């Protein structure tokens, strides 16, 4: 029987990992994701979950441990935040290239300098080229669901890719919300046991994992992974559709639209601040502003087709950027360049600009969203955007 619990994002993640019956967990403490590992440690100690709980000596070690464990046929789980995510950078590509469906939880956190425990997406986003799936949860419920959905997708023989399952530090990882936790039987129906196939380390069928390749094979090696990403959207659709059916959810696989009927301006966002954005959209609508929300669920693979289809309906799109890409083409974050690329071939494109908000754990308030709506409204009136990036709350709302 499914039961309703009040859980923070970290606790919800732990529940999902327990129900996924993982074999090997590797921990290392760093705020704010640590709470998930603390929950799992207690579950292991009480015998609620049968898994090896390895105390890694650092984040690089965490990824190394799960690389080995996955190569030896185990379903694995690890996680980190902030500079921990970037410390492990060396190991992401080896895991993805070896096609090991490791799962890593990222409760995101601003990168040093200086020490800042607050949320920011830059830590995970800076790893988006490493060949892993990546997507954000808005609520503890979605965090719970995303863990199970990602195991299913990542372990699919057509995919075999590792997954970053992300949630905003503190806003999602620590603020409790309602989570419907299914029972084991439902989860078993959705998520089959990990079947690693023939490319694991087994003395009964010896293989050599990762010998050197020639330079003229390099392109082919990378092409393999690129092809896996091409096949990925279909597997995502199947998995999400199955998930909705078994657990009674209503997820859109790639982009979720909220109050977009007749909308002229929309907020485009990923992660926890979408929760505030929903309230802002409702209030704006009450005041006669034709606002809407489009929420991104996967940033890798970036659903270009679905984003273009969704956004081409509107007059102006404000991309909320909770990560930085210094010197990037938009001089702001990472999402606007991807959005504009997705919209490039669309006949009638909306105006697009971006808003740096929520960096370093800063709250993105309703006022910020009203301010963003003001800029977008003026842009629609003027028929153009004045610039590609605004720093919300720190400047005039000029179009």
């Amino acid at each position, binding site marked *: 029987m499914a039961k309703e619990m009040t859980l923070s994002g970290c606790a919800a993640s732990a529940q999902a990992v327990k129900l996924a019956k993982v074999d090997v967990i590797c921990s290392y403490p760093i705020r704010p994701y640590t709470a998930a590992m603390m929950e799992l440690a207690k579950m292991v100690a009480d015998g609620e979950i049968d898994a090896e709980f390895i105390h890694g000596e650092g984040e690089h070690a965490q990824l190394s441990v799960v690389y080995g464990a996955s190569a030896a046929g185990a379903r694995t789980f690890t996680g980190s935040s902030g500079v921990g995510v970037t410390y492990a950078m060396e190991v992401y590509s080896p895991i993805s290239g070896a096609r090991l469906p490791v799962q890593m939880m990222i409760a995101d956190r601003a990168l040093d300098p200086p020490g800042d425990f607050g949320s920011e997406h830059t830590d995970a986003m800076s790893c988006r080229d490493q060949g892993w799936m990546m997507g954000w949860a808005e609520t503890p419920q979605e965090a719970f669901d995303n863990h199970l959905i990602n195991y299913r997708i990542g372990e699919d023989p057509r995919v075999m890719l590792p997954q970053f399952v992300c949630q905003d530090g503190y806003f999602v990882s620590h603020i409790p919300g309602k989570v419907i936790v299914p029972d084991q039987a439902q989860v078993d129906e959705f998520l089959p046991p990990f079947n690693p196939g023939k490319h694991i380390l087994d003395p009964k069928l*010896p*293989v*050599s994992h*990762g010998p050197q390749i020639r330079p003229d094979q390099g392109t082919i090696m990378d*092409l393999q992974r690129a092809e896996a990403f091409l096949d990925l959207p279909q597997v995502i659709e199947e998995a999400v559709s199955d998930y909705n059916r078994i657990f009674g959810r209503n997820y859109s696989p790639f982009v979720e639209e909220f109050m977009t009927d007749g909308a002229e301006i929309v907020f485009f966002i990923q992660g926890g601040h979408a929760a505030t954005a929903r309230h802002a959209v409702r209030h704006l609508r009450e005041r006669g502003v034709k606002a809407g929300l489009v929420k991104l669920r996967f940033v890798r693979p970036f659903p270009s087709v679905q984003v273009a289809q969704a956004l081409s309906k509107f007059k102006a799109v404000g991309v909320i950027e909770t990560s930085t890409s210094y010197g990037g083409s938009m001089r702001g974050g990472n999402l606007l360049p991807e959005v504009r690329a997705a919209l490039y071939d669309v006949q009638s494109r909306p105006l697009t600009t971006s808003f740096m908000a929520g960096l370093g754990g800063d709250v993105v308030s309703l006022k910020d969203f009203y301010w963003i709506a003001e800029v977008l409204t003026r842009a629609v009136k003027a028929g153009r955007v004045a610039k590609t990036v605004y720093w919300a709350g720190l400047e005039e709302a000029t179009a």
Partner: protein
Amino acid sequence: MFNVPRERAVPFGCVTPAPVGEQPMMITGNWREWRPVIDHEICNLCMNCVVFCPDACWQLNAEEDEVVWNAKYCKGCRVCITECSTEALTKAYELDFDDGVVRLEKPF
């Protein structure tokens, strides 16, 4: 969708089957300048050559009670000759032999 030439293909996840007995994709017999020559009359089957060859190119043939040399892989390092406990092993110039192997210009 893509035309990958067979010689450039890479197995899934870069995982290859383990070799059995030898690794024929890395033949090293064409490296050597010197070849070890054995006089079975003198050889006392001490097993030094079998044990000390880094490339496992000396093996004991238990039935025939003699050691056998692997021409396909021997790199001509001459460790066996140095470690031979008798005068059984000596070195000879590779190209003095009819089946002496000419070194390849480029290894791959």
